[in-house]
């Protein structure tokens, strides 16, 4: 270890700040989403179920919030043609 290593030592406070900013952006998104997303999933499922028999697990709702962009991703896997109601 060089005797000058103390000069190169990284300050810890900026690390703390950056870690918190990343973590809290994630946790805040999770916090708001739990209720809304579950509700969305239920409602979307109900609408689709009017027209197609569909599996509960085939509707996936994802909400992502970051500082610049927020996305709502809805992934619906349709049943095969034969099982659709005529």
């Amino acid at each position: 270890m060089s005797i000058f290593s103390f000069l190169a030592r990284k300050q810890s406070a900026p690390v703390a700040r950056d870690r918190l900013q990343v973590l809290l952006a994630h946790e805040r998104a999770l916090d708001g989403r739990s209720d809304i997303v579950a509700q969305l999933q239920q409602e979307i499922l109900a609408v689709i179920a009017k027209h197609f028999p569909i599996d509960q697990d085939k509707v996936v709702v994802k909400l992502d919030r970051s500082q610049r962009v927020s996305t709502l991703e809805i992934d619906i896997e349709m049943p095969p043609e034969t099982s659709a109601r005529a």
Partner: protein
Amino acid sequence: MSKVMVVTSGKGGVGKSTTSASLGAALAQAGQNVVLVDFDVGLRNLDLIMGAERRVVFDLVNVVQGDAKLAQALIRDKRVETLHLLPASQTRDKDALTEEGVERVINELRERFDWIICDSPAGIEKGATLAMRFADLAVVVTNPEVSSVRDSDRIIGMLDSKTLRAERGETMEKHLLLTRYDPARAARGEMMKVEDVLEILAIPLLGVVGESPDVLTASNLGCPVTLHNPSSPAAKAYADAARRLMGETVAVQVPAEKRSFMDRLFGRKAAAA
């Protein structure tokens, strides 16, 4: 008009009770009628910090459950006559407090006091949610340290969703009080700066209390630092915060590093926001 103010943090040991006692005493010294309500059922400590531990006869749980009248449980401070304490009980029963009971007691306190300061227990369990439930404003006590900032963020989220005001769609006034701040360490990059914490939590700053030996001395003696040692920097920070709560415009003094002789000689100003 009375104000119900919760002093909360999520994390334990950051200075909630010290802050409740110091702000309460400062408000009372300014002539306001103040009651401090300890919500930490099972682990009461505000009585000790206020030096009233030997005067507790009835407590919050007794009043909530109707076993004692409010007037019987209130302890009037011996130093400032407009300052009162409603102690918590030492019962281990977690469900001793009910929402209806707490609401009734708070409403009764609103008739008698200008400020009802609810000292929240740590955590996010029932005691903490009841302490904030009926609040009009909140003081979020935070240390410049990662776990405290994260917990404060969580508590801010709860203030915006679990309080009566939030449920009614009204805004919840929230203030950040940064405690145990060490300007020398912040200057060396070893501790997050005031601006860092403010940027992360994004609520208005009520004050910055520097790390100070006077705070421990005051609690050793059972006397809020604003009463025991008004000239100490910590007491001044609390007194200024109390004035801001009363609506005065007082610039926030961030504790500064002690200036060296050379700095004084050249009249260099220490950084202050």
